[in-house]
């Protein structure tokens, strides 16, 4: 039977999860995957992995602090955040996330502190204006043999972050685009793309070590390859009808030219850095890094803001434009501004270049900082 329907009177539902949510899911995924990338150097003790691990830990700490602030801002009653810890509803992934996020941030900060403790101690021994601060920070010692243990704890909570953020969105049956089993994996894989993108940009800004750039580009190519495979499987499942949930997700957006353009743009932002990273792993870090960051962020914007623009019962599409004001553009700029500030503070005050393999037999061998 042929039908033609024209909606004459309907309502528009604004997005309930604001761009703050995009920022949170972007930053926390970057942080969690970066933390996992920091483990080879600081937990497994691989000397060759240290340069990448230092950058990864910097990314994990700075984004790990910024992300929960964006999350808090997305609450419409931010001053009631304490209720998460009083009324934990066990059936809600968000309720579990409320416990996982602070655990992750605390363990990540503790891990970073433990890794840098010897250098903090060293700087506290020097004769300079802020030596007292670093003596306080080192808690009077330089031993950090316990760092791998904290790192393992942080790594487990990072896996918890990737699990809960993915599941929290994936279980929403009312939104077909979210309710696909691949979504948690796609969040994790694109999170790794974002983390490696940031590491590449930081490498170009702070290190300019061609070998490290090439190594990071190789890892980025692997992460982008994984994203491509997941994306390809997603489409294959949707088109073949093997997975009704994927088919429903595709059907919910496939007919709209806007979504076709988004899909093409998304594919390009994966393929282009993948090819560049493979063909030109050196001197391409800025390009591949920035495109990778863009791809990871855009994926979340598309999922959250685009997903909310698909009506559950109405016709057509709602707005998915970036609103101005504190809950939109200013919020995005502000979050990135805070992150940039933390990066500057980290590289200024934390002796990150001295971070080495955890070792409780370490002794002071010389000044950690020129006076």
């Amino acid at each position, binding site marked *: *039977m*042929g*039908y*033609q*329907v*024209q*909606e*004459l*009177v*309907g*309502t*528009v*539902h*604004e997005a*309930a*999860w604001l761009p703050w949510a995009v920022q949170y899911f972007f930053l926390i995924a970057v942080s969690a995957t970066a933390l996992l990338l920091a483990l080879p150097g600081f937990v497994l003790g691989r000397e060759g992995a240290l340069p990448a691990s230092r950058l990864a830990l910097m990314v994990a700490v700075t984004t790990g602090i910024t992300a929960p602030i964006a999350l808090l801002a*997305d*609450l*419409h*009653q931010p001053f*009631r*955040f304490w*209720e*998460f810890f*009083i*009324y*934990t*509803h066990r*059936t*809600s*992934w*968000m*309720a579990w*996330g*409320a416990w996982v996020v602070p655990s992750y941030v605390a363990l990540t900060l503790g891990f970073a502190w433990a890794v840098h403790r010897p250098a903090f101690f060293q700087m506290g021994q020097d004769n300079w204006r802020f030596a007292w601060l670093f003596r306080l920070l080192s808690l009077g010692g330089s031993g950090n043999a316990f760092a791998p243990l904290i790192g393992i704890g942080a790594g487990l909570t990072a896996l918890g972050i990737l699990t809960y953020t993915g599941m*929290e969105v994936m*279980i*929403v*049956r*009312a*939104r077909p685009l*979210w309710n696909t089993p691949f979504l948690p994996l796609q969040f994790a894989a694109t999170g790794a793309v974002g983390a490696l993108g940031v590491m590449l940009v930081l490498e170009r800004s702070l290190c300019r070590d061609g070998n490290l750039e090439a190594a990071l580009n190789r890892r980025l190519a692997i992460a982008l390859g994984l994203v491509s495979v997941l994306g390809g499987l997603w489409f294959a499942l949707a088109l073949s009808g093997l997975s009704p949930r994927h088919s429903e997700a595709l059907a*919910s957006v496939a007919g709209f*030219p*806007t979504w076709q353009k988004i899909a093409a743009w998304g594919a390009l932002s994966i393929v282009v850095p993948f090819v560049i990273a493979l063909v030109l792993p050196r001197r391409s870090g800025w390009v591949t890094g920035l495109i990778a960051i863009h791809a990871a962020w855009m994926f979340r914007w598309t999922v959250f803001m685009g997903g*909310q*623009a698909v*009506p*559950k*019962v*109405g*016709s*057509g*599409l*709602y*707005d*998915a*434009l970036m609103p101005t004001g504190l809950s939109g553009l200013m919020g995005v700029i502000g979050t990135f501004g805070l992150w940039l500030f933390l990066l500057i503070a980290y590289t200024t005050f934390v002796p990150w270049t001295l971070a080495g393999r955890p070792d409780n037999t370490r002794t002071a061998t010389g000044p950690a900082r020129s006076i």
Partner: protein
Amino acid sequence: MDTTRRGFLGTIGKVTIGAAASVAGASRSATAATQSGAADRSVAHWGMVVDLRKCIGCQACTVACIMENDVPEDAFRTHVSVYELVKDGQDPAMVMLPRLCNHCDDPPCLPVCPVEATFKAENGEVLVDASKCVGCAYCVQACPYDARFINHETQVADKCTFCFHRTQAGLLPACVETCVGGARNFGDLNDPESEVSRMLRENEVSVLRPEMHTNPNVYYIGLDDVLDGRIAGDAAYTPPVETAHRAIHEEGA
């Protein structure tokens, strides 16, 4: 007949008086909150039967709800969607579809609430404890009917309460009270003698989005299958970007 005020007052004696209403719903109380009123047949289980043959799309229910519940300007707890439906090239027909919270027996909005602010009241209403809601909007995402929203005046989740404050006082929901054509019928689904039970027995009824298995308590008489889910047609409102694209396209053509 419990859709009238007199009939409704008769049934109210059977229910337990619960908690007082608050802005976005009602404050939870030990007496009012249970897992589901459907389990106990001696307790009223509120439901609505919407006879689409009688709805004229006047939006009196929409306005009555806004006035009764102080709904902010940019939101609706209920409204009537209106569609032009052309079947097999026949003459177009105007179809009305009143929408509201379905007060499901298995509400997807309930398990996702991280602080248990959303709960099912004794008589089956799905309510929000406004004093507890953190405004995370997870329930807004989980509702398959787009029946929830964040109230920008209270900054908490907001939705239809089946006019909890009115039913507790023996009154009908405002939308039912004001319905011009008698399309909206409200009553106790547990009472086989109630008007809504009789309507369910005597008519073929449908629910919205049956594939979601939410067991809604809002039923429709005369609902076309093509309208029970997401409506695959042109929207009444086109976002600015789409409008701009269309204008450019048309200009180019």
